[in-house]
C-alpha cells in the first residue's frame, strides 16, 4: 500500500544531500498536493540537520524556480533543494 501512496520526488544537492545522507527522497504528500512552504517545513522537522541549509536554499519545482512558498506541489512533481551555488 505504501508504494502506491502519492509522493513528491525531493532532490537534495550538496549540503542538503550531506545533511540527509541521501540525494533523493520519495516524500509522501496528500493527493491534493501541499504548499511548497509547508513541504519545506516538514522536511526541516524530519531532518533537523537540514534546517540551516533550507534557510539559504532556493527551491525548484519541475525545473522552475519558485518565487515564493505559495506554489502547490503535487504528487509526481520533482522538488529540488538548491543550496547556494558553487560552480566554476
Amino acid at each position, binding site marked *: 500500500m505504501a508504494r502506491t501512496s502519492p509522493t513528491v520526488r525531493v532532490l537534495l544537492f*550538496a549540503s542538503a544531500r550531506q545533511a540527509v545522507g541521501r540525494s533523493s527522497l520519495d516524500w509522501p504528500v496528500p493527493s491534493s498536493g501541499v504548499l511548497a512552504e509547508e513541504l519545506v517545513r516538514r522536511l526541516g522537522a524530519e531532518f533537523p540537520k537540514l534546517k540551516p541549509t533550507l534557510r539559504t536554499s532556493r527551491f525548484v519545482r519541475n*525545473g522552475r524556480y519558485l518565487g515564493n512558498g505559495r506554489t502547490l506541489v503535487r504528487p509526481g512533481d520533482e522538488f*529540488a533543494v538548491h543550496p547556494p*551555488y*558553487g*560552480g*566554476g
Partner: protein
Amino acid sequence: MTSLRSTRRTEAVDLPVLLTAHPLSVAHAMRTLEVEGAGGVVLFAGRVRPGRTRAGRVVALDYEVHRAPALARLQELERDSRRRFRARQVVLWHRVGRLGVGEVSVIVGVATPHRAEAFAAARYLIEELKSVVPIWKTERARPGRRPRRRPSRRAGR
C-alpha cells in the same frame, strides 16, 4: 589543428553549452570560437587548485549539477551575451563529477567583434555562471602531513 578542424562540425564540444563528465579541452573551445567577424576572443579556464581544509590536503573536487535547470540557465546566459555584448560565439562548458588537482573545471569563452566587449562578456559570464547555475563542489581531502615549512602548527591540531 587542420586535421581536427575538418571534423569539428560533428564534435559535441562545438556546442555553446556543455555539462560533461569528460575532460574539457581548451583547444576545442578555441576552435568553437573561430567564427567570422570575431576579432577578439577571450577565454577563461578555471582549474582545481591545490589547497588544504581542516580534513587535510585537497586531492579532488566533486562537482554536482542539477542538470535540466543548469542547462536552461546556461542557455539563458548564452542568449544574454549575444544580446548584451554582441557575442558571435560563446562557450560555456562545465565539467561535473570528480576532478583531480590541476584539471580544468570550467571554460568560458566569447568571441566578439572587438576586444573590449570580449573581456566584459567573459567576466560577466563567469560571475553569472558561479552565482545562478545549479552546480556545487565538495572538497575531497586526504589527511596528511602539513607542509614542512609550517612544522610549528603541526602539533596544534
